[in-house]
């Protein structure tokens, strides 16, 4: 079908333009919006490969929650003055990264293509994608049988992340002093008062 090729081409262009936009935009808000574009493109490719549940989660969690969190923090803290991308703080950083980019693309692409060609692994070890059931059913069964322990550990991870975020973003009881010397003294005093 020509349709799949067209869908892939359009999605690939959207993904790459969005990714370059994230890296090249001077304003962090523009970077966040470009990130949404890339995430939608990846969701389209998930649908094209039959991963319908992951496509939905990609849009809901990534574009709906994570990028909104990024935008929230950017807006909360005030839009940073646009970064001057013209200056190069480390001498030779840009040439070195371009060499790295060429090596990285060629190595990763070679690795992936070669892996597809020589892959002799057993097929459908966990569960086949094409046994008549929907993608959500197959994924849910694998998730709640073979991978149920990892699923439970994930819930512990999320609790830890929430507690960590609260601890770090909480306003300390004593306002930190402006100069470094007083700031160095402040944490022991604050810790002492918390223990008491």
């Amino acid at each position, binding site marked *: 079908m020509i349709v799949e090729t067209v869908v*892939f081409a359009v999605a690939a262009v959207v993904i790459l333009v969005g990714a370059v936009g994230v890296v090249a935009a001077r304003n962090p808000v523009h970077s966040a919006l470009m*990130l949404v574009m890339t995430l939608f493109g990846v969701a389209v490719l998930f649908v094209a490969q039959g991963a319908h549940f992951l496509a939905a989660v990609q849009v809901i969690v990534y574009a709906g929650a994570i990028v909104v969190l990024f935008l929230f*923090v950017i807006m909360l803290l005030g839009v940073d003055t646009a970064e001057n991308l013209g200056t190069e703080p480390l001498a030779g950083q840009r040439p070195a990264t371009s060499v790295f980019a060429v090596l990285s693309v060629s190595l990763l692409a070679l690795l992936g293509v070669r892996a597809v060609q020589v892959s002799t692994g057993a097929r459908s070890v966990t569960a086949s994608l094409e046994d008549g059931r929907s993608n959500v059913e197959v*994924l849910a069964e694998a998730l709640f049988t073979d991978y149920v322990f990892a699923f439970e550990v994930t819930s512990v991870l999320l609790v830890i992340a929430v507690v960590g975020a609260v601890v770090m973003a909480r306003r300390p009881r004593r306002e930190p002093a402006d100069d470094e010397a007083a700031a160095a003294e402040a944490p022991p005093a604050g810790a002492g008062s918390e223990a008491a």
Partner: protein
Amino acid sequence: MTVDDSWYLLLSALLFTIGSLGVLTRRNSIVVFMCVELMLNAVNLTFVTFSSVLDDIAGQVVVFFVLVVAAAEVVVGLGIIVAILRRRPNATADDVSLLRG
């Protein structure tokens, strides 16, 4: 599948490299986080591609866990950035270099 799987892997390699370039060159730590998300998405695309190559659901299960870990990572990372910005005016990578040695 009419689109060859190698094209998906090539696109994924490009996306991963763009993300890692951003991590290496950008100094605004929020943008660096977004570039880490790009790299995670490239890996997710690879997992889904191999899931369809090998006709196995396990690759998609891994992507599900990667999504969860990415959400947790962003929450903690942005918490750290907020904590840094409470003490000093901006949080570019050059400003948080006290441990540089």
